[in-house]
């Protein structure tokens, strides 16, 4: 599924034109991106939370050579799915894929 499928869903389910639907989908993700860029977290109830976390620098290793190298401090984005989303992926308690 891509952005085009989301545009299509907004178009068919709500009846907005393709152009309007596309504007909405684009603006939604653009807004989410700038919000996260500013360091603010986003909470979508029923879906999950997007949070920016600061990581300290640490010593890592090149797994091929075993050389120790410093991994610089950085900001990363994490997504924590909501319980509702997690449950909807596991309908029965007796899930045996």
């Amino acid at each position, binding site marked *: *599924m*891509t*952005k085009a*499928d*989301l545009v299509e*869903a*907004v178009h068919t*389910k*709500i009846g*907005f034109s393709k152009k*309007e*639907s596309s*504007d*909405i*989908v684009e*603006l*939604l*993700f653009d*807004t*989410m*991106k700038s*919000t*996260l*860029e500013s360091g*603010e*977290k*986003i*909470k*979508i*109830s*029923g*879906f*999950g939370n*997007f949070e*920016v976390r*600061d990581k300290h620098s640490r010593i890592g290793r090149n797994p091929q050579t075993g050389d120790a190298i410093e991994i*610089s*401090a*950085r*900001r*990363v*984005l*994490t*997504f924590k*799915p909501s319980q509702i*989303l*997690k449950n*909807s*992926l*596991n309908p029965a*308690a*007796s*899930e*045996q*894929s």
Partner: protein
Amino acid sequence: MTKSELIEKLTSDLPQLNQLDAEMAVKTIFSTMTEALKVGDRIEIRGFGSFSVRHRKERMGRNPKTGVIIPVPAKRVPFFTVGNELRTRVNSDATAAASEGQI
């Protein structure tokens, strides 16, 4: 920022969009994404990131209170991978070395 604040932002940026329509659009977008994940489909939003479903095997867990060992059933979990553009943007005001040291 919450879902309702996101909806407010959409209505203020798109004047032709009213509150109720914006609400329905945002709900439709996230419920469509949830439905896709439910059937195991992967969602790829260019510049933002992708969502996929990962399988966790059954494992032995422990009730932390009593110490009793119980099986934790196999399950499917949603997984998000941040896209290149957003990863760079989020990290942009961290040290310059951090952003040039990686993709």
